[in-house]
């Protein structure tokens, strides 16, 4: 059912690399591989640039990326007890979009209506029923995000 033709699937069907993505896109969009590669590289470069600028990325239907900033702090070398400076660091986080999360779980919006009552759309982790889902993932990263 996937778009990836069997011909370019890795045997075992487990991993699709960037070059396979390029092949599929070239086929589907009638582009040369070189051009498909350029487009795909451009997309990911644009995304990396945005994250470097501390800018979040929102790809509707797919998910969003944010950068979390970790402040510098004085840590200790546990062996010697010396104080060491831990540099500030930034890490990217991805949160899957609603549409994709549903699809991954086998729910199709256009198919039979999903059992909404049993599976509220938001929660995902510890808040399955009735509770208000948090607007955004706070500092406590949910398992869904990690």
């Amino acid at each position, binding site marked *: *059912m*996937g*778009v*990836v033709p069997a011909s370019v*699937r890795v045997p075992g*069907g*487990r*991993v*699709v*690399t*960037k070059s396979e*993505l390029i092949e599929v*896109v070239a086929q*589907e*969009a009638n582009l040369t591989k070189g*051009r498909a590669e*350029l*487009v*795909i590289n*451009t*997309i*990911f470069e*644009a*995304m*990396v640039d*945005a*994250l*470097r600028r501390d*800018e979040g*990325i*929102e*790809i*509707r*239907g*797919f*998910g969003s*990326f944010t950068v979390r900033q970790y402040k510098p702090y004085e840590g200790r070398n546990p062996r010697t007890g010396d104080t060491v400076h831990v*540099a500030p*660091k*930034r*890490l*990217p986080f*991805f949160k*899957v979009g609603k*549409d*994709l*999360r549903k*699809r*991954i*779980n086998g729910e199709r919006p256009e198919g039979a209506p999903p059992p909404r009552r049993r599976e509220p759309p938001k929660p*995902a982790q510890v*808040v*399955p*029923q*009735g*509770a208000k889902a948090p607007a955004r993932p706070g500092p406590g990263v949910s*398992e*869904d*995000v*990690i």
Partner: protein
Amino acid sequence: MTKADIIDRVCDVVGGFSKKEAADLVEKIFDVMKQTLETGEKIKISGFGNFLVREKKPRPGRNPQTGTEITIEARKVLTFKPSPVLKQALNQPLDAPLPGAGDRP
């Protein structure tokens, strides 16, 4: 940054596409990725990161508001593991050099 910004970038960098064509193409690329992940396959984008669908087992949980014990059903989650290259890129401030990324186990 949204899809629109990415589309603009594709137009600027690649050239030869109308806005509409670039938009369709960007849409298609994310569609292919979505459909790939939907089948349970993993995506590896070198220099960016890996997308992986993980199966979570059911486990007991609690409604934090009412304290009611409930079972969190088995489900699949999509995780993103950033590439070391991306992590390094985010941590390359223009001023301070950072400790090497590879010098820790």
